[in-house]
């Protein structure tokens, strides 16, 4: 074993480890609280002092996905016994399910807009990044800076004209409109990141392909694309996470058909005030994919959030 003076001592490591783990645990508390609240009954969720040990119930999830109406005891009696488990849960509160809530719809919108904009963004971003990486584009540095600077704009500052423009084009509150918008917002990230990834692929591969008689296009999609696959995948996840989490444009520019989940979750209200278990259930379902992606992404994390300005 090699000895290095810069290697921290065992004691230092211990000390550092305990502090970091302590911070991580504090960080985790709000997150775990969200997940736990989703499985609490409404009474448990607002109990004082807050309960840590409780009997888990799916009531929050049932409330999240359904609309319910209050029914009088004789109405419930007349309706006969509950047929399904979720019906049973709502009847304990004297309500019957009147239909699905809009959460499913909003969640689906998030999926459509998130994946749609990510796909479009990857196509345009890869092409632009390839061109910036391999060709002499006139005004290259200026164009690259221009692309980056579009990210500095506060969403509200451009929301008004986008709102007017979309209204004239009939794109207001449509999936296509939101896909185009999120694609534009994410393009800066994807061009910068992908350029970094493509820069790292040796140019000799393409030259060899060109000598073999490939055209530029063939060299691009048969040689460069497979080489850049991991980079493209991680860039795609970053774009997806951003589109997934976006709130300002979603709340300002959509009201019904194309509204995504982030503006919807906070509006979930129960019979008496906020239905916190349902809100927590909605948040949990919404957060879990991102947490999974974070674990998958951990190696590329830094590059992604800083546009590749910092290399790890």
């Amino acid at each position, binding site marked *: 074993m090699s000895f290095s003076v810069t290697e921290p001592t065992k004691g230092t490591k211990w000390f550092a480890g305990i502090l970091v783990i302590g911070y991580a645990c504090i960080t985790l508390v709000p997150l775990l609280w969200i997940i736990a609240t989703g499985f609490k009954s409404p009474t448990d969720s607002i109990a*004082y002092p807050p309960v840590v040990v409780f009997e888990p119930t799916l009531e929050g999830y049932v409330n999240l996905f359904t609309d319910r109406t209050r029914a009088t005891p004789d109405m419930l009696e007349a309706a006969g016994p509950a047929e399904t488990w979720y019906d049973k849960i709502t009847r304990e509160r004297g309500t019957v399910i009147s239909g699905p809530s809009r959460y499913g719809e909003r969640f689906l919108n998030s999926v459509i807009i998130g994946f749609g904009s990510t796909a479009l963004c990857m196509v345009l971003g890869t092409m632009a990044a390839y061109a910036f990486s391999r060709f002499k584009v006139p005004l290259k540095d200026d164009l690259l800076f221009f692309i980056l600077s579009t990210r500095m704009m506060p969403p509200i500052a451009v929301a008004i*004209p986008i709102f007017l423009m979309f209204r004239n084009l009939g794109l207001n509150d449509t999936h296509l409109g939101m896909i185009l918008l999120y694609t*534009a917002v994410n393009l800066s990230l994807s061009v910068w990141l992908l350029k970094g990834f493509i820069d790292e692929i040796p140019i000799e591969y393409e030259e060899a392909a060109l000598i073999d008689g490939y055209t530029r296009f063939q060299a691009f999609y048969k040689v460069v694309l497979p080489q850049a696959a991991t980079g493209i995948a991680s860039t795609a996840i970053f774009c997806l996470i951003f589109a*997934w989490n976006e709130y300002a444009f979603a709340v300002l520019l959509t009201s019904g058909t194309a509204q995504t989940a982030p503006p919807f979750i906070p509006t979930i209200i129960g019979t008496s005030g906020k239905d916190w278990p349902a809100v927590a259930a909605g948040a949990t379902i919404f957060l879990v994919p991102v947490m999974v992606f974070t674990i998958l992404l951990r190696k590329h994390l830094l590059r992604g959030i800083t546009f590749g300005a910092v290399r790890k």
Partner: protein
Amino acid sequence: MTLSPMDTAASKTPESMAKRIRGLSDRTIAWIFVAPTIFLLLAVNIFPLIWTIRLSFTNFRVNRPNNDVEWVGLRNYKRILSDPDVWNTMQATAHFLIWTIALQVLIGFFLAFLINKKFKGNDMWTTIIVFPMMLSPAVVGNFWTFLYQPQIGLFNYVVTFFTGGDPASFSMIGDVHLAPWAIIIADTWMWTPFVMLICLAGLRSIPDSIYEAAECDRASKWRQFWTLTIPMALPFLMLAVLFRGIENFKMFDLVVQLTGGGPGNTTTLTSIDLKREAFEKWRTGYSSAYAVILFVTVFGLASIYVKALNKVKER
């Protein structure tokens, strides 16, 4: 024999198209590849920005499209810059920015410094620490209001448990003095990992050999920290401040869900104020001028800062 135009096209197209693509110069291909991106950015970012600037000189209102649009010159700008409420908002934003950046840089750097000690399992714990910043700020902000609720909220419970206050009357987001701190705490929880990651990259970029040399010179650990670690990591720290500064200047989702700008106007940051003017009061011209002022501020501050950053990097 006569061929219909269709047949002519069919027989000619494949070959000549192939020839044309093969014959495309690199320059043309570059343009074909870059053009869609530039076009989309112009359409969705630059065009609206120019439109905003134009609207900022008018008294246009979106909810009254049939009213005559009057050119009012710089009147909107004058009104904004002489409005004490706007200055209060700016002050609230500055307060928010200074504290979040200070806390995040301090805690973030300290964490990075500790993680860099390479203790067992540091990768896993780093990933856990990073979770908050990947989540949706609006959803997270909304849930923090629950944690802050008087009586029922977990945060409230913990604080009153340790301070012995009355849990029913203690409210982070209902108190004029505490509300700004409620958003600072939530923002710090969410974004400290970001600063931590960048600092970590900075610390890892310092070669071990420098420390070995310092060790030979018998420099104390403390001295090594101040004369080696800090200066070497400084460009990264400054980069973190830049990114956080821009992001927090346009902060909207987290705060809107957390406090909605209240109580009173204590947590009304500029972007929230702007949203009210534009989408609640529908004063489009006025809010466009407001947006332009904010945009110029961010851009101005950011470019001055980037110059300073480049100087530090050159050293």
